[in-house]
C-alpha cells in the first residue's frame, strides 16, 4: 500500500516514514504543502497523512483540491490543533480520520491499516478467498487451515491482490501501490514475486487462485 506523508516538522516526518516503511508500506514524503499537493495529484495513494499547518499551501487547501479532483484516497489529518471546530473543518473538507499530536505511532499505524481496508471495502480484518485466509492484523496467511510463511514483500503483494480480489490488477497498479520508489527494482519484479507467491499458496492438491490475464494483469480468486 502506498502512503504519502505531508508534514513540515522533520522529526515527525522522518519517524513516520521510517515506521511505515518498516511496516512494509511504500512511502513518499513532502515537507511543504506545494510538494505535497504535487505528489498527491501525480500519484495514486492509498492513504495520505496530512499536517494542517504547512508552509506554502496549508493542509485544508490540499485536502479540498484532492477532493475536487475526485480522488478517493483516504486522508488522515495529523495536527496539533484539537479544538472541535478544527476537527469539524477537517472532516467537512473530506478527511477520513483525524489524529492529534502527540500521538502513539502504533495508533497511527492501526488507523492507516483501517483506512486501507475501508478504501478497498474490506470491513473485516480477515480476508477470505476460497480456503485462503489473510489476517491483515497479524499478517498471517493460511490455506486450508495450514499456515503459509511469506516474506514481507510477498505478503504485501498478496494483501494488495486480496484487497482487490476478483478484480484485474495491472502491473502498473501493483508497482504503484506495493513497491517503494526508493527501492531499486527491476522491471519484471512484479512477475517474479507473483511466481514466488504462486509457489507458496498453490499446491498440487488445491485449485489455482492467481489467474493471469494476458496483457492486462492478475486476478486473485474468481473473476467477476
Amino acid at each position, binding site marked *: 500500500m502506498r502512503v504519502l506523508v505531508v508534514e*513540515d516538522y522533520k*522529526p*515527525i516526518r522522518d519517524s513516520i516514514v521510517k515506521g511505515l516503511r518498516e511496516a512494509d508500506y511504500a512511502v513518499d514524503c513532502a515537507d511543504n504543502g506545494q510538494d505535497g499537493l504535487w505528489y498527491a495529484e501525480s500519484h495514486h495513494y492509498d492513504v495520505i497523512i496530512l499536517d494542517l499547518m504547512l508552509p506554502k499551501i496549508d493542509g485544508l487547501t490540499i485536502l479540498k483540491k484532492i477532493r475536487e479532483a475526485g480522488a478517493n484516497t483516504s486522508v488522515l489529518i495529523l495536527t496539533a490543533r484539537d479544538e472541535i471546530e478544527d476537527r469539524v473543518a477537517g472532516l467537512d473538507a473530506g478527511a477520513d480520520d483525524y489524529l492529534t499530536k502527540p500521538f502513539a*505511532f502504533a495508533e497511527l499505524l492501526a488507523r492507516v491499516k483501517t483506512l486501507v481496508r475501508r478504501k478497498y471495502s474490506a470491513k473485516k480484518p480477515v480476508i477470505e478467498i476460497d480456503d485462503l485466509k489473510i489476517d491483515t492484523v497479524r499478517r498471517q496467511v493460511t490455506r486450508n487451515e495450514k499456515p503459509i510463511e511469506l516474506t514481507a514483500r510477498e505478503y504485501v503483494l498478496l494483501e494488495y491482490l486480496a484487497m482487490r480480489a476478483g478484480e484485474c490488477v495491472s502491473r502498473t497498479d501493483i508497482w504503484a501501490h506495493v513497491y517503494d520508489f526508493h527501492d531499486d527494482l527491476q522491471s519484471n519484479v512484479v512477475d517474479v514475486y507473483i511466481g514466488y507467491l504462486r509457489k507458496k499458496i498453490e499446491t498440487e492438491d488445491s485449485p489455482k487462485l492467481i489467474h493471469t490475464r494476458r496483457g492486462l494483469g492478475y486476478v486473485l480468486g474468481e473473476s467477476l
Partner: protein
Amino acid sequence: MRSLQTTLMLWIGTTIAAILIVAGAVIYWAVYRALLDQFDGSLDRTGRTLAALIETDGEHLESEAGDHDLSQFSTNEYPEYYQIFGSNGVILESSTSLNGQTLPYEPNRSEKTRFEFALLKNGHNVRTATLNFVPRLEHAEDAHGAVGNDVSDRNQAALTLVVAHDTTELNGTLSRIAWLIVVVTATTILLGLVSAAWVAKRGLRPLRAAVDDIARIDGKHLDVRLDLNQAPSEVQPTIAALNQMLDRLKETFQREREFSANVAHELRTPLAGLKSTIEVAVSQERNTNEYMHSFNECLTICDETETIIANLFTLSRVDSGKCAVTNEHVVLPQLIRDTWSSFAQTADTRSISLHLEMDESLEFETDPEKMRLVLRNLFDNAISYSPNGTNIYTACNQQADLAVIQITNTASSKLNNADISHVFERFWRGDKSRSQTGQHSGLGLALCRSLIELLGGSIDVSVSSDNRFTASVNLPNKSSKS
C-alpha cells in the same frame, strides 16, 4: 462607602429640613413681631386714655372716671396695672390690681412710649409701657377748659405713668404657634425623607438592573452587552463605558486564548516528534548507529523545546513587568562579536559570512543580558532564513544619542512588506520562508521587541527591493538619562 440611595436620601432630607427650619423661624419671628406690636399698641392706647383722665388739684391726683369704669385694673384674671410716679420717683397713685407691688420705674426721657418686659412679685409676666404726661388742673377745666389746660401744662411738673398688662395670654398664643410650626416642620421632614427614599430607590432602578446584567458576565459570557436604550440618559455614559470595557476584555481574552492555543501547538509538535521518534526507534532491534541517530534527533528536539520554553518564559516575565533591568557599561561591538561566535560554526558549514561595519569605541549603558538575547534571536533568524553562500551584514554606530544596530540578510524566499508587517506578532511565521516547526516558533522577533522596549529602545524591520531583510534596533544610552 455609603450607598447611593442612603446618600441621596440624606442629602434631600437635610436640605428639606434646613429650608423648613429657616422658614419656620422666619414665620415665627414675623408672627411674634405682629402680635407684640398689636399688644404694645393696645397698651399705649390704654396708657394715653388713662393719662387723659388724670386730674390734679395741685397736690392730689384724681381720676375723672370712677373706679368701676376701670375694672380691667382690678378684677380681671389677667389684669392690667398702672402706677404714676412723680418726677423724683415717688409713687403718687397705683391701681388696685397691683395690690401693694410696684412696677419698675425708669424715667422716660423721650416723647415716645417705651415698652419693656418685667416680672412682678406675684410671679406674673407683664409688658410695661412708660410715658410722660402732665395732669390737668381741676379748677381750670371747670372755668375755661382748653385755656386752663394750657396754663396747667406750663405750670405743672410732668409725671411718669407706667401701664402694664399681663402677657400670659400673649405667651400662650405664641407658644401655640411655635408648636404648630414645629409639628408641621417635623412632619414635613419625615414625609420628605420617606419620599426621598422612594424616589432614590425608583431612580436607581436602572442601575440595579445594570448590576444584575453585569453580575451575569464572566469569562465565558463576554458577548453580553448592556442595553443602552433602556438606561436613563445620566447612566448611559456609564453603560457605554462598561460596554467598551467589555469589548476590550473580549479582545484580550480572545488574544490570550489564541496565545495559549499557539503555545499548546508549539509544545505539542516537538513532543509528538519526540514520541514518534522514540516509538519507531524501539519498535524493533536495531544496530548502535541507528539508535545513536535516533538519540541525537531526540536531543535536537529537546534543545528546540528548551528554546521555545525559555522564550515563552522571558516573554511572560517581560509582560508581567517582573523582568528586572540591570544596566552596565557595554562595549556594543564586543557584545555583537561575542554573540555571533556561537553561530560561527553553523554559518561556516553553510558558507554564510558575516560582514561587520561598526564604531569600535561605541560604549553604552544598557542591560547586556537582554541585549545578548536580542542579538542571538536576530542572528539566529538571519542565519536560518539565509540561503547558503550569502552574506550577513551587521552595522553598529551612534546616531544622535541612540546606538543603531542593523542586521541584514538575504531572504531565502520572496518577502514583501505586507508579510513582514506581522513579524512582531507572537507565533507568526513568514510561512513562505518557514522551513520547519521547532526553534523558529515565531516567538523570536516578538521577544526581541518586548526586550528592546523594556530597554527603552525600538526595533523595526524592512525588506529592500533586492529581497534583503533588515532588522534595525535603536537603543538609548541609559546613563545619559540618569
